[in-house]
C-alpha cells in the first residue's frame, strides 16, 4: 500500500472508533490475563451482546500500567479506570456507563502513579488493540516510517537519531545514533537488524509489555533501522517464555506484510525489509548480543570476545545492528516528531523516558514510564505509593543481576545512566525492585549470585567457576559459618570475576555483592562476627550448635 492508502485506512478506523459512544478497554496483557482479565473481557462482551447495546465497544488492549490492581478496565469516553474487576462485575460496570461511576471498583487516575508518568514508548499501551494494525495506524502508527522512506535519506534518519540523543535501552546505554551510523558505514554484502527481546532480568517485564501492548511500534522501529543502515532482513529474537508477546508480534508481522509494510517495495518505495521471529530457549546469557547472534545462527548460545563488534561482524559474519525492544519502540515517535523533540526531554546525557517494571515491596507495582532525571524517591514514594504495611524502606535494586542496591541516602539522585553508575548500580533494562527492612541484603546478594551462577554459559573460567565459588561463600555467610577470611576471599573473587570475565554477564555478576558490601557492610559483619541476621531472614544456628 502507498502512504496515501495507509493513511486512508487510518482515517477509516478513526471514523469507526467514533461510531462507538462508549468503549470498554480491557487489559489483556500478561499481567491482567494472569488474574483472569480474559474472562472479564468475555463477560463484558457477552453482557453487551445479550443486552443488544448499540454504540458500545468492548476492546482488548495492552498494558494499563497498574499491574498490582489488575484486572484493569478503562471506560471511554470518561476515561474512568476500574481495578480488580471480576467477571461478575460485568453487569454493574455496563450499567455504570449510563449512570454514576462505579465507586466500588474505581481506580483514581489522578493519583501520582498516573500523573507523574510520561508515556512515549507506552503511548499506545492500553489505548489500542494490540492485535489490530488499523488501531495502530489510527494512532499515527507507521507515520514515522513513511516520513523516513518518503522524505529522508538513510543518512538523515541516522542524523535524526543522533540528534535525539537516544541511548540503548537494553542496559549498556550506548548512543543509538552512533551504533546505527557504525553499521551503516560497515561494508558487507548483506546487513541485518536484530531486535533483542530476550528480556531475562528477574522482576523485569518492560519489553514483554511493549511487545504485548504495541507490537507494530517495534516492527516500525526495526524497518526504519533497516532503511537507515541498509539492511533488508531483520530478526525479532524473543524469549519463548513470552508466548503472548510472540503471538502478537507474529500476528503484527503478518498484518504488516499483508499491507506491504514488510516485504518488497515498502510503501511503494524501492526499499524492502522482512522480519522473522526467533525464539529464545530460556538462556539468560542470550540477551548478550554475541550469544544472541550465535543462538540465531543455530549454535550454542554463548558469547564470543568483542571486538569485532556485531556492527562490523555480526550475524553470519555480516554487519549487524542489534537493539533492544524498548530502543526500537522509541524510534517511531522520534521520526514522527523529530530528534529535537525527543532531546527536549530528560537530562543532558540521558534523553527521553525510561520504562521501569516497578516491583517488590512497594504499594503500586506495575509498568511505569518516567522522564529521565526523575528521582528514585519520586518513583518509589509518589508513583509507587511507598512501602506497604508501615515498613521502612531499605534499598532499591536496579539493573537486575548486573545492577546494584541503592540505599536511602541516594534516593534524591536523578535517574540517568551516569548517576546510577556512580552509585554502583546501572540503569539496566529497567527492572526496579524495592526492598524494605524485612530484606536481608546478604540474602539478596546471594539470590542474584545464584541466578548468575545458574545462567552462566560456562565458557570462560572466571564466570563459570567464580560465580559458583562466590555463591558458596555467600551461602556460608548467610548460614553464619563464614570467617573474615571468607569475606576477604569473596571480595577478591568479585574483583577477579569482574575484571576477567568474557562477557557482560560475568563482568557484572559481582555488582549486587559489591553494592551491598558498599552500603550494607554492617549486615555482612553481623552475619560473620555476631552470627546474626539483622533482618531475621537467614537461619543461623545458635553458636553452640555450630560444628567446630
Amino acid at each position, binding site marked *: 500500500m502507498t502512504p496515501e492508502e495507509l493513511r486512508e485506512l487510518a482515517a477509516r478506523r478513526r471514523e469507526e472508533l467514533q461510531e462507538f459512544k462508549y468503549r470498554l478497554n480491557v487489559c489483556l496483557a500478561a499481567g491482567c490475563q494472569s488474574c483472569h482479565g480474559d474472562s472479564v473481557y468475555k463477560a463484558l462482551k457477552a453482557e453487551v451482546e445479550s443486552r443488544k447495546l448499540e454504540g458500545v465497544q468492548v476492546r482488548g488492549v495492552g498494558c494499563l500500567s497498574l499491574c498490582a490492581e489488575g484486572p484493569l478496565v478503562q471506560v471511554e469516553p470518561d476515561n474512568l479506570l476500574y481495578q480488580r474487576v471480576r467477571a461478575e462485575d460485568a453487569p454493574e460496570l455496563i450499567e455504570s456507563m449510563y449512570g454514576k461511576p462505579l465507586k466500588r471498583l474505581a481506580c483514581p487516575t489522578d493519583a501520582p502513579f498516573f500523573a507523574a508518568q510520561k508515556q512515549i514508548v507506552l503511548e499506545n499501551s492500553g489505548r489500542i488493540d494490540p492485535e489490530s494494525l488499523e488501531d495502530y495506524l489510527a494512532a499515527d502508527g507507521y507515520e514515522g516510517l513513511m516520513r523516513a522512506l518518503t522524505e529522508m535519506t538513510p543518512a538523515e534518519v541516522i542524523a535524526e537519531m543522533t540528534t535525539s540523543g537516544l541511548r540503548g535501552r537494553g542496559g549498556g546505554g550506548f548512543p543509538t545514533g552512533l551504533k546505527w551510523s557504525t553499521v551503516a558505514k560497515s561494508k558487507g554484502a548483506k546487513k541485518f537488524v536484530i531486535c533483542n527481546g530476550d528480556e531475562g532480568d528477574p522482576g523485569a517485564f518492560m519489553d514483554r509489555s511493549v511487545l504485548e501492548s504495541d507490537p507494530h511500534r517495534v516492527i516500525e522501529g526495526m524497518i526504519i533501522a533497516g532503511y537507515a543502515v541498509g539492511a533488508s532482513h531483520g530478526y525479532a529474537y524473543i524469549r519463548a517464555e513470552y508466548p503472548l508477546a510472540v503471538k502478537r508480534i507474529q500476528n503484527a508481522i503478518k498484518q504488516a506484510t499483508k499491507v506491504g509494510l514488510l516485504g518488497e517495495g515498502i510503501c511503494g518505495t524501492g526499499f524492502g525489509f522482512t522480519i522473522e521471529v526467533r525464539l529464545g530457549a530460556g538462556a539468560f546469557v542470550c540477551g548478550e548480543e554475541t550469544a544472541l547472534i550465535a543462538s540465531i545462527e543455530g549454535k550454542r548460545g554463548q558469547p564470543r570476545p568483542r*571486538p569485532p563488534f556485531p556492527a562490523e561482524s555480526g550475524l553470519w559474519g555480516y554487519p549487524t545492528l542489534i537493539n533492544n525492544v524498548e530502543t526500537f519502540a522509541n524510534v517511531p515517535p522520534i521520526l514522527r516528531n523529530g530528534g529535537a523533540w525527543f532531546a527536549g526531554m530528560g537530562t543532558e546525557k540521558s534523553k527521553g523516558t525510561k520504562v521501569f517494571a516497578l516491583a517488590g515491596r512497594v504499594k503500586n507495582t506495575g509498568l511505569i514510564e518516567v522522564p529521565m532525571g526523575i528521582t528514585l524517591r519520586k518513583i518509589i514514594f509518589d508513583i509507587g505509593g511507598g512501602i506497604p504495611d508501615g515498613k521502612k524502606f531499605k534499598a532499591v535494586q536496579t539493573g537486575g543481576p548486573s545492577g546494584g542496591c541503592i540505599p536511602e541516602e541516594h534516593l534524591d539522585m536523578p535517574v540517568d545512566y551516569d548517576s546510577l553508575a556512580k552509585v554502583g548500580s546501572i540503569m539496566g533494562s529497567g527492572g526496579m525492585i524495592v526492598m524494605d527492612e524485612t530484606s536481608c541484603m546478604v540474602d539478596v546478594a546471594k539470590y542474584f549470585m545464584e541466578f548468575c551462577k545458574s*545462567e552462566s554459559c*560456562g565458557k570462560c573460567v572466571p564466570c563459570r567457576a*567464580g*560465580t*559458583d565459588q562466590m555463591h558458596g561463600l555467600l551461602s556460608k555467610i548467610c548460614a553464619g559459618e563464614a570467617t573474615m577470611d571468607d569475606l576477604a576471599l569473596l571480595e577478591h*573473587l568479585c574483583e577477579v570475576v569482574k*575484571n*576477567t570475565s568474557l562477557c557482560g554477564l560475568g563482568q557484572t555478576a559481582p555488582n549486587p555483592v559489591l553494592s551491598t558490601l558498599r552500603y550494607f557492610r554492617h549486615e555482612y559483619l553481623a552475619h560473620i562476627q555476631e552470627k546474626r541476621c539483622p533482618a531475621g531472614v537467614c537461619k543461623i544456628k545458635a553458636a553452640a550448635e555450630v560444628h567446630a
Partner: protein
Amino acid sequence: MSDAPHILTLKIDDQDVSAVEGQTILAVARENGIAVPTLCFLKGLSPVGACRLCLVEIKGVPKLLPACVTRAAEGMEVTTDSPRLREYRRTILELLFAERNHVCSICVSNNNCELQSLARAQGLTHVRVPYRHPRLGVDATHSRFSADHNRCILCARCVRVCDEIEGAHTWDIMGRGIDCRVITDMNQPWGQSDTCTSCGKCVHVCPTGTLTEKGVAAAEMKKRQQFLPYLTAMREERE
C-alpha cells in the same frame, strides 16, 4: 598500490616489536620470546578467548583483553605481566583446580599436563578457594581412548579440533555454567558414537589428563600436538 602486508609497530612489555596487520598480540609476543600463559589457545585451532589467562593490559583501554584474539595495532602499548595480571591468573588457575578433581599424583598426564605446568610457572602454592569435589564419571567405552571428566577444564580444544580439523564434530559441550560437560554426539557413550573416526586428535590436543589413550599408567601419557600446525599449514598451502 602493492599488496605488501601492512607492518605495524607497537610495544610489548616496553619492548619495541613489529607485527603484520591482522596478527594477534599473542602471536607477536611469542615471536619475540615474550611468554604469555594460555590454556584454551592452541595454534591451529580457532581462538575462543575462554580461559582468560592471556589477558593483557593495553594502555588507554580500561578493560583487560585476551591476547589470543586481540589484534595488534599501531602504537599499542601492551603489558603482559604485572602484579595485578599475575594475581588474576593465579586466581583463575585456583578456580580451575578447585572446580573438578585434579589429583596430579595419580594422573596419566602427570608431568605432561599444561594445567600442572602453568600452576608451577605462575607460582601457585595452594588453592585458596574451597575444593568442590564433584562426583564425575569416566567414559571408558571407546576401545582406544578414555575421557575422565574429573580432569576436564572445558577449554573446548577437543570440540574445536574435531569440528575444524577432523570435520567430525563428535565433541560438543552440554549444560550451563558449573554443570557444563564435554559430550560425544548427543551425550552418548564415546564408544557408541556414530561420528567418531577414532582419529585421536582430541586426545592429543587435550591439555590435561581428560582425554587419554588407554593402557598408559600414571605419568605415562605424552601428548603429541605437532600434527596440528603441520596439518593446518598443508591445508593453507593447498588453498
